[in-house]
């Protein structure tokens, strides 16, 4: 173990924190605490508080899933996929086409949801393979170009009036599949206000005691479901990464020729990693956009900027680390999307910033006379656009200062067993002869 024994008090704490599960748990709890504090400060009631925490958790979780999917491609194998949005779109659209009610506009096939979800994942995988197979043979740059192009082609195709009977064209899907939570709890899953099923009755009446509405219960349970999906995806990729498979992927990322010269069919490994990643992006697209509280399957949903958010989140967390991916996703989603409006409300409430300059010039000029309020007001009013500038700055700083991400985990070991120094078998190694005999056996 690399931990020093000097400060015995901190050692157990550190050991707990060295555990990946603990890191993720601490991150989520910290986010909940911070948002609880935000909500508290703004005087939210039970249901407002629940919906705030629920929203940030949902976003953190779906980001976690896509970032994990990108991590197996880019973090592990070094495959530069800038078409993340496109693969998510394929997943979400396919589910919408397969499992939406036939009565909706555009009509879906009304197939059971599990079939739809499976179909969505498969479709995203297939599109990934068709796009990438030729490009994976070429240099990394070509893959980047091909993926960004395919992502746009997908979006434009879905947007096209020519296919609007099936895809809804520019307006997208009017009626999306119902989530399993809705199906379980509501007699008419398509309407959130409908009568509850007997299970729903129990759940809703329990929640009602805390003043939580039926609608909030459905969304909260769905978010818990998404957290479970995140957990499953995480465990899956953690196992895939911490195995000889993950080891070969990392070797490809480091030096493909070296991996080939050690007998690894690198093309095959890359194709499998790419397919797996695309399938999981499809899954993320499904749980994020095809149902649940943010359901929206339209071409605008899948603009390329999502792809860049995902990359930023992965860089923040640390490419090459599954735990880092989950952390990066959670941190990014909460910082960029949910925190700024909260902070604005809090500042506005605390400091009564009423100045409302029309543009940056009007905001800057009063500084000369020592009046900072107009600038403050300007910044607050434009926090929605300014947060992207902030993200850009954060990204630049991170890449310069901590290129391996917050956790610096690009160098996580990839093996099915621990590879620490204390794993050395205690064979006789005092003299060279013994070592020669030992070594001799390795080549039999």
């Amino acid at each position, binding site marked *: 173990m690399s931990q020093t024994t000097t400060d015995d008090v901190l050692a157990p704490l550190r050991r707990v924190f060295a555990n990946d599960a603990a890191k993720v748990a601490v991150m989520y709890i910290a986010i909940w605490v911070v948002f609880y504090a935000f909500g508290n400060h703004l005087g939210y009631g039970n249901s407002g508080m629940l919906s705030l925490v629920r929203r940030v958790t949902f976003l953190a979780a779906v980001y976690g899933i896509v970032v994990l999917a990108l991590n197996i491609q880019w973090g592990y194998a070094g495959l530069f996929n800038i078409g993340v949005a496109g693969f998510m779109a394929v997943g979400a659209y396919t589910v919408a086409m397969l499992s939406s009610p036939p009565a909706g506009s555009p009509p879906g096939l009304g197939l059971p949801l599990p079939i739809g979800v499976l179909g969505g994942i498969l479709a995203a995988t297939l599109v990934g393979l068709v796009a990438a197979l030729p490009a994976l043979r070429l240099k990394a740059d070509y893959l980047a170009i091909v993926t960004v192009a395919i992502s746009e082609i997908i979006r434009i195709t879905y947007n096209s009036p020519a296919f609007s009977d099936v895809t809804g064209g520019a307006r997208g899907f009017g009626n999306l599949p119902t989530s399993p939570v809705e199906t379980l709890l509501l007699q008419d899953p398509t309407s959130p206000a409908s009568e509850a099923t007997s299970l729903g009755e129990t759940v809703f009446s329990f929640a009602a005691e805390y003043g939580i509405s039926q609608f909030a219960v459905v969304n909260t349970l769905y978010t818990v479901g998404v957290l479970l999906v995140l957990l499953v995806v995480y465990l899956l990729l953690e*196992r*895939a990464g911490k195995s*000889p498979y993950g080891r070969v992927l990392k070797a490809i990322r480091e030096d493909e020729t070296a991996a080939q010269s050690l007998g*690894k*069919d690198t093309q095959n490994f890359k194709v499998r990693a790419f397919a797996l990643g695309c399938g999981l992006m499809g899954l993320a697209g499904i749980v994020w956009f095809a149902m649940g509280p943010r359901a929206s399957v339209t071409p605008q949903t899948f603009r390329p900027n999502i792809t860049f958010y995902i990359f930023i989140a992965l860089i923040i967390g640390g490419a090459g680390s599954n735990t880092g991916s989950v952390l990066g996703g959670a941190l990014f989603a909460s910082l960029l999307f949910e925190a700024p409006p909260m902070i604005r409300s809090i500042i506005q409430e605390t400091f009564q910033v009423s100045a409302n300059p029309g543009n940056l010039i009007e905001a800057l000029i009063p500084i000369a006379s020592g009046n900072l309020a107009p600038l403050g007001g300007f910044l607050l009013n434009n926090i929605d656009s300014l947060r992207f500038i902030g993200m850009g700055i954060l990204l630049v700083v991170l890449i310069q200062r901590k290129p391996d991400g917050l956790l610096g985990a690009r160098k996580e*070991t990839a093996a099915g067993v621990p590879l620490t*120094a204390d794993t050395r078998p205690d064979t006789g190694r005092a003299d060279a002869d013994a*070592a*020669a005999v*030992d070594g001799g056996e390795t080549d039999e």
Partner: protein
Amino acid sequence: MSEDDAPSVADADIPDDVDVPEDVEPETMDSDVEESAKTVPRSVPLRVEGLRKEFGGITAVDGATFAVEEGSLTGLIGPNGAGKSTTFNCITGVHEADAGDVYFRGEEISGEQPHDIVERGLVRTFQIARQLGEMTVLENVMLAPGGQQGESITRSVLPGTRGRVVAQERELREKAWETLEFFELDHLATEYAGNLSGGQRKLLELARALMTDPSVLLLDEPFAGVNPTLEEKLLDRIHDLREQGLTFLLVEHDMDLIMQNCEHVIVMHQGRVLDEGPPERIKNNEEVIEAYLGGEV
């Protein structure tokens, strides 16, 4: 580890589709390559015919033809830029040769993928070590062996098969530690390969190549930067492995080392084989002396 399934038939004049019994002893060269067929007592696992490789205007390898005998330690020498490394690259599929053929155990392997060639048992090291910098030394070594169960995603992930993957990993880790001990890299096992010194990187390169369980090893200046004591030890190891049936083709600039350890020496010059034979013969060849052993005298 899987058994060595490289065909035991060296050069068969049997059509491809006929199954060759495994116990057939290697025959001598076959008839359609008569021009190069020499009366060799031992079988020839590696044979290169008229190999040619151009880079833009430079002809790096210009019709090189040679053979490496089973169980031998063959030296490949020549001045800088003679085309030795390029020859290795063409043999192992890293570069595609412009012309010429490479035969491994009687089968043509020209144009095959590097990983297929490694699976046949023909493995090489690089002159400039290709350590995987952001992986630990132990990971580097554990990467190498073929036939790892856990290279399948499903087997690594599914609960029923994960156990077997982990068990194999445990065995592999033990073997890796032993190998590292031999190469005196064990104290660096958990270090990132990118932090190794030049000599240590060469050692890691060699250790990794050995972990692939090769039958023929092409070593491109493996001792460059390695301390003399360890060099002796590695040479001893190479001789041990030869006794176990491994074949070595060794590129090396240290003439004393070549002359003392190799039974056969191939001299390359300007992409061609200038001469080959036992060390005594090479030492006394005027042309070789001219080209390499201190020509301008």
